[in-house]
């Protein structure tokens, strides 16, 4: 049974790759058996501040050079705050600095830029069953850096299984990839700077999870996310080190309504005797969008993402990548596809380096492949 399920996952992965055209969180921690993001992160949806266990795992299983086992290096500010001296009301504190060197080249353009993406400090306070998180920092929007409270939430833990959260944060159907420029996030409208007022209830067990979000329109008329919506996500781990998820989102903004159906799978295919160093991540999303202008037809689009990771050494992962996006499935000219490869390196706790190169074809620009490459530097305190 187990082998059959893993085989299905591999077949699904191959289908994604070869299907003919007519689609900060670290999701691949699933391969260590971590199917719930909140094992390592304070946020139930992953990303953001690490809890104490996440800090330990960043050293023990993510980093190439671990450092002393009984040291405090992995904690905030290299041990300035660690479990033995942290006040009980301070659940987590984490600073993040992230920047990217970007390069794009095709028939019509050749450009590059160094982009300071993020400078944040997240603080999570706790009292009994209540947590409160706020993130202050600067996010770059075009040429400007905006300094403000970027996001916040309050979370109430009813028990080990159920929690209620409300505040301003991002939601996403499917897997919360840290690469917000991936089409599976950006083309669905869940890329960067998508924090909005949200109320969320979630239930997790050791084998499954269910989350429902109510996304409200930001009262700021200049907010980039005027869309309100409802998101429901369900995932299950049918066999060890595997997570299969489905999400449904219904959105409504001043110009259109849309439904997004997302299906994703993450797996470390050790069950077939293949190395546990291999994982795959696949996601497909199907969107039905209807304009509010009378007479406009329903537009169906789809986005697909597939990635195969191989951890050749602890802390160093190389991967192959396939993306496809079609904004109107009835018009082949709206299709774009990308094939790429990358590497992710965690030399030591607090540090991350990632690089990726993709060959991208955008049908509206012709049949030639252009190149998109980036080098990302991430440091968290």
């Amino acid at each position, binding site marked *: 049974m187990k082998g059959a399920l893993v085989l299905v996952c591999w077949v699904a992965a191959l289908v994604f790759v070869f299907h003919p055209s007519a689609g900060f969180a670290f999701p691949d921690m699933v391969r*260590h*058996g*971590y*199917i*719930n993001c*909140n*094992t390592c992160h304070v946020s139930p949806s992953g990303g953001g501040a690490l*809890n*104490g*266990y996440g*800090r*330990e*795992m960043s050293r*023990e*299983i993510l980093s190439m050079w671990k450092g002393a*086992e009984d040291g405090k290096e992995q904690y905030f500010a290299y041990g300035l705050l660690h*479990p033995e001296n942290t006040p009980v009301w301070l659940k987590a504190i984490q600073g993040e600095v992230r920047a990217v060197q970007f390069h794009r080249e095709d028939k019509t353009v050749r450009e590059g830029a160094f982009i300071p993406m993020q400078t944040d400090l997240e603080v999570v306070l706790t009292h009994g069953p209540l947590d409160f998180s706020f993130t202050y920092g600067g996010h770059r929007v075009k040429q400007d850096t905006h300094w403000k409270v970027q996001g916040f939430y309050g979370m109430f*833990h009813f028990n*080990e*299984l159920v929690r209620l959260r409300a505040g301003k944060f991002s939601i996403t159907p499917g897997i919360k990839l840290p690469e917000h420029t991936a089409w599976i996030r950006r083309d669905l409208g869940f890329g960067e700077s998508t924090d909005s007022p949200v109320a969320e209830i979630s239930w*997790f*067990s*050791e*084998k499954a999870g269910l989350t429902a979000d109510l996304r409200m329109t930001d009262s700021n008329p200049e907010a980039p996310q005027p869309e309100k919506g409802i998101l429901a996500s369900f995932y299950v*781990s049918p066999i*060890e080190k595997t997570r299969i998820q489905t999400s449904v989102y219904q959105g409504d903004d001043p110009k259109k309504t849309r439904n997004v159906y997302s299906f994703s799978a993450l797996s470390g295919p050790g069950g077939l005797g293949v190395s*546990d160093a291999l994982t795959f991540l696949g996601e497909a999303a199907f969107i039905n969008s209807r304009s509010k202008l009378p007479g406009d037809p329903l537009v169906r689009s789809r986005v697909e993402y597939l990635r195969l990771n191989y951890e050749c050494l602890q802390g160093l992962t190389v991967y192959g990548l396939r993306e496809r996006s079609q904004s109107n499935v009835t018009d082949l000219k709206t299709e774009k596809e990308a094939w790429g490869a990358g590497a992710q390196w965690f030399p030591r706790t607090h540090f991350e380096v990632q690089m990726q190169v993709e060959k991208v074809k955008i049908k509206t620009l012709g049949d030639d492949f252009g190149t998109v490459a980036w080098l990302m530097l991430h440091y968290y305190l």
Partner: protein
Amino acid sequence: MKKQTNYLMGLILGLGLCDLAAGAVSPAQKGACLPNGNGVEFEAIGKPSLLKIVGKGKPVDCEVSLLPDSGGSKLVGKFKFSIESLDTGIELRNKHMKEKYLEVGRFPTAELEIKDLKFKSISDLSSETAFVGTLLLHGVSKEIQGTFSVKGDEKEATGEAKFEVSLKDFGVAIPSFAGITVSETVKVRVPVSVRKQ
């Protein structure tokens, strides 16, 4: 995390069950576990994030006897398991589990003894059947209950034993690390392959 060596299960039953299937009383038969079978597994839950921790180890060593009993047969056996062989996939976790909590330096093995597992015929054991045995773990000996199932023939049999262990019952401190605390009860699964001697 504990490992329960519930070897009993079906392995031994496979031996000589054909004789018993007809209700015949046969002389005592002996068997031993094969060294190349699947290993012992345990599953524990870490809270509050409900992290599932799975550990795997070597196959058990066992010596079993199948004795005639009124109306059928009974199984007697001893099963031994090396705690040092356990692996949860994370080196630091393995170290804490073995050195700090299970103290393998003092208690390198776990042993389970079954003195009186009665059955009428081998077909009774193809579905999960309750058993009672004595488990020696972490220097503490206690009675435990579980289930097993077995399938096989006159020469070899394979089966599986399942049971739960309360860490406190065996004097094992509840493992806790970086905010994750393991639940008191651990599930154990013991695949067994037995060959008649």
